[in-house]
């Protein structure tokens, strides 16, 4: 009865106001999906703040947190179903080159089941993305990237929120700060720090932390952000992203690009696997080819997708021939592919041929790499212990690298205070508290750095009215990025309006965060009314004649 009255009341409104102002249907109640507060208090709060802001546009907005599993399922695989969602792209060294994100996030090829979650379909953008990929001239490529950013700014497929800062802390009585390396967009928690870090006293074990358990550690698996910190140390790569954000030869003596589609690599000599066997040119070729065997290394497969062939050109040298020019190849492939021992992995791949599992799920008892650290023990939900590889050409100064895995942020802070960990590498908690701790405990020093990653709210263009650029612009215009950075992200973030972080100064478009079209509530309302939307009372309606045909998210 009551419901009937309400329904009647609702339907009466457009009828009564029809004389005053013609309008379409009211916009349906919209839903912002996000992770539960427990998993990500910051995103949750950002979603709540955004919902508040959108309500000012006469919309009904609810925040719907979903547990991790369900969240991924719906956002990733049920793309017709959701309106908007919070999401993030994390910073990884390989993302120091803008190509991966520039290409994957927005090209139309990725709409069906790739990274183009929102379903942006812009032929202009597709052209720009492909062009920057093939442009080897840096200034020209920079211009293309900035053009792409402006295009996205006009389209607003996302409500960009912030670029987070990485907060790390360490015990300065244990570690010599001057031995740490700062990597652009990553901070001091990076490969170079681990290999260079100098102890001040007798504590020679660097004990870092992770709040999430890594997945299986294999040279053909990406074991989550934290797991990668360990795999980077164990498996060498032909190139690595240097502290400057540019790729530099690592396990290669040299890497040259004689033409746009060829890459010559000379392997460093004298390298040994942790089991004592020498690293050969065959191992290098195998490592470049293996991810392409069948579908046995799905995560790494895209990184070799552009390789046409690999030829051995000498006892320690090889040539890679690409299918197409690829500006980012050194970063996104050579700096990413792990060197895996052929004598161990070739038989495994052979064995996998007739099995459903992939190489990702295979974990050796004690995994063998050739990197500056080697495995001692692994308990994925407790700790990973690596020890320095004294035979490595870049042998570390520390004895062991230990990662404690504990999801409890409170306990992690306590552990830093008590010395159970001496390098806080994974802190998802309240930035204030860490700063306070450092103030009250002089032995602890905090270092922050702007991350390559970013956080955003995705607008699903498959579902009207998100297909309307005016509507998207209005939503983005009312989001208060300063407040989000200050309140939701505790000040450890800067406002964003692009997927390219200011940390990548060369590629970033300075000031783009100030150029969101509109920019105020009044302007946003104007965008909407200009596009034909009608405010009926305090409720936003579609332009005249437009029916609401999309079901409410459930």
């Amino acid at each position, binding site marked *: 009865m009551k419901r009937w009255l309400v329904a009647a009341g609702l339907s009466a409104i457009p009828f009564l106001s029809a004389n005053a102002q013609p309008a379409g249907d009211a916009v349906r109640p919209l839903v912002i999906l996000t992770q539960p507060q427990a998993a990500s208090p910051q995103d949750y709060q950002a979603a709540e703040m955004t919902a508040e802001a959108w309500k000012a546009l006469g919309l009904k907005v609810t925040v719907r947190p979903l547990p991790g599993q369900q969240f991924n399922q719906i956002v990733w695989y049920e793309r017709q179903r959701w309106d908007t969602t919070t999401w993030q792209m994390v910073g990884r060294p390989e993302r120091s080159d803008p190509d991966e994100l520039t290409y994957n996030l927005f090209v139309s090829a990725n709409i069906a089941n790739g990274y183009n979650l929102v379903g942006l379909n812009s032929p202009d953008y597709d052209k720009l993305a492909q062009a920057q990929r093939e442009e080897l001239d840096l200034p020209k490529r920079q211009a293309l990237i900035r053009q792409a950013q402006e295009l996205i700014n006009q389209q607003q497929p996302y409500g960009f929120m912030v670029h987070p800062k990485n907060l790390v802390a360490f015990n300065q009585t244990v570690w010599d700060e001057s031995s740490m390396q700062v990597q652009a967009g990553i901070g001091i928690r990076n490969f170079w720090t681990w290999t260079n870090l100098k102890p001040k006293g007798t504590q020679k074990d660097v004990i870092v932390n992770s709040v999430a358990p890594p997945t299986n550690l294999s040279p053909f698996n990406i074991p989550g952000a934290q797991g990668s910190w360990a795999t980077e140390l164990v498996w060498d790569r032909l190139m690595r992203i240097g502290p400057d954000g540019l790729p530099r030869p690592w396990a290669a003596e040299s890497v040259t690009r004689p033409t746009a589609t060829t890459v010559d690599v000379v392997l460093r000599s004298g390298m040994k696997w942790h089991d004592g066997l020498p690293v050969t040119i065959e191992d290098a070729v195998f490592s470049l080819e293996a991810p392409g065997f069948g579908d046995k290394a799905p995560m790494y497969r895209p990184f070799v997708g552009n390789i046409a062939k690999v030829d051995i050109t000498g006892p320690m040298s090889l040539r890679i021939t690409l299918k197409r020019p690829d500006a980012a190849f050194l970063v996104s492939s050579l700096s990413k592919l792990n060197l895996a021992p052929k004598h161990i992995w070739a038989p495994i791949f052979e064995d996998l041929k007739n099995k459903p599992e992939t190489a990702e799920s295979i974990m050796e008892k004690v995994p063998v790499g050739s990197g500056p650290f080697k495995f001692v023990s692994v308990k994925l939900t407790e700790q990973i212990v690596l020890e320095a590889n004294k035979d490595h050409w870049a042998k570390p100064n520390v004895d062991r690298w230990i990662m404690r895995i504990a999801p409890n942020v409170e306990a992690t802070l306590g552990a830093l205070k008590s010395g159970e960990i001496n390098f806080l590498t994974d802190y998802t908690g*309240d930035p204030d508290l860490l700063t306070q701790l450092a103030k009250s405990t002089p032995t602890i020093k905090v270092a922050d750095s702007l991350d390559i990653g970013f956080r955003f709210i995705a607008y699903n263009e498959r579902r009207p009215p998100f297909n309307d650029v005016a509507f998207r612009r209005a939503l983005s215009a009312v989001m208060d990025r300063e407040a989000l950075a200050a309140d939701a992200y505790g000040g450890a973030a800067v406002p964003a309006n692009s997927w390219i972080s200011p940390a990548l100064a060369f590629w970033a478009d300075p000031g783009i965060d100030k150029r969101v079209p509109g920019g105020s509530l009044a302007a946003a309302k104007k965008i909407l009314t200009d596009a034909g939307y009608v405010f009926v009372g305090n409720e936003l309606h579609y332009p005249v004649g437009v029916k609401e045909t999309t079901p409410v998210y459930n």
Partner: protein
Amino acid sequence: MLPWTRGCRSVRSVRLDPYATVGFTIYTAIAAMAVFARQLAPYDPKAILKVGNRIARYLPLSPEHWLGTNSSGRDVLSQLIWGARSALEVGLTAAFAVVAIGTLLGLVAGYLGGWADRVITWFADIVLGLPFLPFMLILAALTRPGAGVVIFTVAALLWPNTARVIRAQVLSLRERAWVEAARVTGCSTARIMFVHLLPQVLPLAALYGSVAIGWAILAEASASFLGFGDPEIISWGGMLQESYANQALSRGAWNWFAPPGAAIMAMVLAGFLISRGSEKLLFPKLADQ
């Protein structure tokens, strides 16, 4: 001692026992909070309060905010008051379900005996072999997390305790003269069970209910803590989880962290106190061994 006399005594002691008085007082206070939440709570518990255009995070205790605000700028006292509502909803629903199922099966098993008794006892044994929290977690993972899972788990796994006691009591009651008399005068089995026996066992069942309320609240809190609560509902367990996720401990935000825990404790304690008259109620498994 016959279970019957034990039951009698505990029911009577509920009225006399000072502990039980405290228990009922706590329940009354919580019920009042739940019913009058709208009037009592100074703020909308979900409203994000602002100071200027910034969120009013972590405001200290003040006349405006007796228990301060939390990390998302919400009034802690208002949340505490509204939390009583979901606590009562979850607690009462679950307790009602436990009592209803337990009493029904206990009655049937005790009065009918024979194969009905054997089947029910066997079923109870199976249920006692399912670990409570893990079962709830799995269930929460495969359906939508929230109060429903908690209530279902409590009802599905805790009825055997009540059923056992009711069954024992019915076994002794059915031999009584007046039951015999009812049988002789041609009362139907259903009538004897529900009209004659049921009112006799209800007080005992209600005592079990008061304990079940507590277990349900604890279960809900645990589920919330492990991330399987209903995030859209304001509950004490959810408040604890939220404070935990936002490091209220490190911050020393006792005003946020302590009250919901204390409220849960008080509510569970109230159930214990009420049933204290018969301590064996707390140890149903052992009582009849």
